[in-house]
């Protein structure tokens, strides 16, 4: 085959693989849950971009392997050399430099999107007990300041349930959030580490006992979502789901006033399971920390927060 035809063929194959990778990158949006926050869109853009690049690399290398298996088989007992090339310094430089540039590009994309998330809300994540001056200096150096949150909701988590305290002191086991408004979640853990995770929000944050940890969310889509504890927290870890309801500001305020009049009833799945004998095939009967019925928002223990 003439040299130029070979190059043309390679170019065509690469073009097809690029198009295919791009298409798969587009599909990646459908593999994700609903986009319920502004952050979610950014994260999905980044994921789609990563999938496109990853798919291209996999197609090229896997394609070469499969092609070799089909076309480069040796006859039995032929142990003569295949191809005497021990290396090609230009090729090696190329395939060292390309991934370097590629990952730097990916990392910059990551930083870029991270900065946008930062402005959207991730910035206020941790408030360590720092002296006031250094905290102020930190705020100046980090540049763009996020807008103040419209609402602050306190999140309490313990083994094994969530509870939420709203500005008017309503305590609930559901997280209600107003749509299109920045809400600050001020999070406290009682006993062990937990992780606040709503897949549809694409946000996750560990909650460390004794530390005051904030997360700012701006949900953009009304609906009902699920809050999970993503960090293993002991026996009844799997039961740590809570409902998240994103509502219009009117509905949200209406719910707040309505909830104020109702008495909070506590339903704790872990307690229910703990008091029942296990129904599983294998029963170990090993020790577990006993879940308490009491909602922790009422216990008001969080005294050591800064």
């Amino acid at each position, binding site marked *: 085959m003439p040299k130029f035809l070979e190059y043309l063929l390679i170019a065509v194959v690469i073009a097809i693989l690029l198009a295919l990778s791009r298409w798969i990158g587009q599909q990646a949006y459908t593999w994700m849950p609903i986009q319920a926050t502004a952050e979610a869109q950014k994260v999905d853009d980044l994921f789609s971009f990563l999938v496109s690049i990853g798919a291209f690399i996999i197609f090229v290398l896997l394609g070469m392997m499969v092609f070799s298996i089909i076309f480069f088989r040796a006859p039995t007992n032929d142990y003569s050399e295949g191809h005497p090339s021990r290396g090609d310094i230009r090729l090696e430089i190329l395939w060292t430099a390309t991934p370097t540039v590629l990952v730097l590009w990916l990392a910059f994309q*990551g930083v870029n999107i991270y900065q946008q998330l930062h402005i959207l809300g991730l910035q206020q994540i941790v408030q360590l007990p720092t002296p006031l001056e250094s905290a102020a200096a930190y705020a100046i150096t980090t540049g763009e300041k996020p807008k103040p949150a419209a609402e602050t909701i306190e999140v309490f988590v313990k083994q094994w349930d969530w509870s939420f305290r709203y500005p008017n002191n309503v305590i609930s086991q559901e997280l209600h959030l107003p749509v299109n408004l920045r809400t600050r979640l001020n999070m406290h853990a009682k006993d062990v580490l937990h992780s606040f995770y709503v897949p549809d929000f694409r946000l996750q944050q560990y909650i460390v006992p004794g530390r005051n940890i904030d997360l700012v969310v701006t949900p953009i889509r009304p609906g009902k979502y699920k809050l999970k504890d993503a960090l293993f927290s002991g026996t009844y870890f799997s039961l740590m789901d809570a409902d998240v309801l994103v509502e219009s500001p009117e509905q949200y305020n209406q719910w707040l006033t309505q909830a104020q009049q109702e008495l909070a009833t506590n339903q704790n799945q872990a307690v229910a399971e703990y008091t029942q004998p296990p129904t599983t095939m294998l029963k170990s009967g090993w020790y577990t920390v006993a879940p308490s019925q009491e909602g922790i928002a009422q216990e008001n223990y969080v005294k050591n927060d800064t």
Partner: protein
Amino acid sequence: MTHEIRETAPPNEPENNWRQYFKFNTDHKAIAVQYMVTAFIFFLVGGLLAMLIRAELITPALNVVDRPLYNGLFTLHGTIMIFLWIIPFNAGISNYLVPLMIGAQDMAFPLLNAISFWMIPPGGILLISSFLLPNGTAQSGWWSYPPISLQIPPGQPINGECLWIISLVIIGISSIMGAVNFVTTIFWMRAPGMSFFRMPVFVWSALSAQLLQLINLPALTGALILLLLDLNFGTQFFKPLENGDPIIYQHLFWFYSHPAVYIMALPAFGIFAEVLPAFSRNPLFGYRSLAVASLGIALVSIFVWVHHMFTSATPSWMRILFMFTSMLVAVPTGVKAFGWTATIWKSKLHLETPMLFAMGGAAMFLLGGVTGVMLAAVPFDIHVHNTYFVVGHFHYIVFNTITMAIFAAIYFWFPKITGRMYAEGWGKLHFWLTFIGANLTFFPMLPLGLQGMVRRISSYDPQYQDGNVISSLGAFLLGVSTLPFIANMVGSWLYGQRAVNNPWHATGLEWTTTSPPPRNNFAEIPVVKRPPYDYGNPKYSVIEPTESDEQRRREIWER
């Protein structure tokens, strides 16, 4: 370089002396077999625990094991597979190959070598015996993050967590002693002419992995001792409500446990670099860059641990810094993957079992590596952290890459180790069951994680059931896949056809000696005058049955 003879045993001991494997033995080859067989037994135990986990997850509701038992199962599954399967197996295969590949008669410190091995069975048995305690095993995951790991039954100082820590400290000390031995051996025991750039890539990988053990493992051992003090002796290093800091534990833990991934993966990459050239009849493409890339991976991997903690109240500058370093690992790793592919390209492929496992492992590594780069990107990681996406990703590395490489190594060097050939048909059956089972088990975990299925849960939302059913069926298939392997290994070792010295026509010093090698490995210490992977040389392609092994070895290594 001069070479001391440390043992005065006769050069050719009776070949089928199986009793040597059951006693304290200082021959690196016997120790290697002890390591590998012991590790494989632990692999079967860890696999049984995995099948129980998958049995529970086949339905959304809790119905097979109760929750404390489930938590114990995944804790011990992870611990056993990492610390009692892959790491000791790698110590075993490195023990076998390193002295042979560099032309040494044994490891630098044979007695230390034997002691390192003999710490593994007590450590492992102690860990597994915690199932017999009244309140069972450790239940806080293989990370054992405080304060959850400190929640123990009141008034029971001997509990699962305590045994977990003690056995990990024992295994860790064994690994540190092993690392001292490997590094010393590779630096000081090479045969005349075996310069660094004549060492096979496997030796480079073993060296890089063992250097990581030396540098990083002490951090974990120290952290575990502090954890034990917190657990049983009332200290408050990691107790958040008593002015301790649980996040420091995470830093110390991952300072070892991320490099541990490379400690496990580097020998696997080394195995690919040996098997792929032999069965494609090509020199390893870009030998020098692949050799140096091993050290590059080791070096970069020391500075990436915080990517396990992107959501652990980690400040932004740290998240961004560690995103860059974590992504940089892709560069030396990419060099390796490109080098393997270029070695296969335009070759004369022989698809025997070791090659199937090596190619299958290298192919599945692509997905493991690409998902790894994705996870390094902070914004994406914040979404999938602690989900099945991470579980799928690392099983593509630890099972679909490393365990596949381990099987490739077992089949490739089986004739050398035992002096007998394995049964090819059974090997191929084992490969196909494993390859299909591995993808069925671990691929569905990736979409499940994207959809938000959290790891370590014992019951889950019904929306996740389809993927979990496929994954569980795959796991049972993987369980079945070990049966032809065990039958093949046992049957072939006892009754297999006698193996010649170099059944694969491969290069490398280990193939110039007898199968199995004599006590001191080589009748004479070879003088190395050729680069590794000399597959262009006709001597490796011609089979002349009349030529004696001795003659051929002399020709090749030109003593």
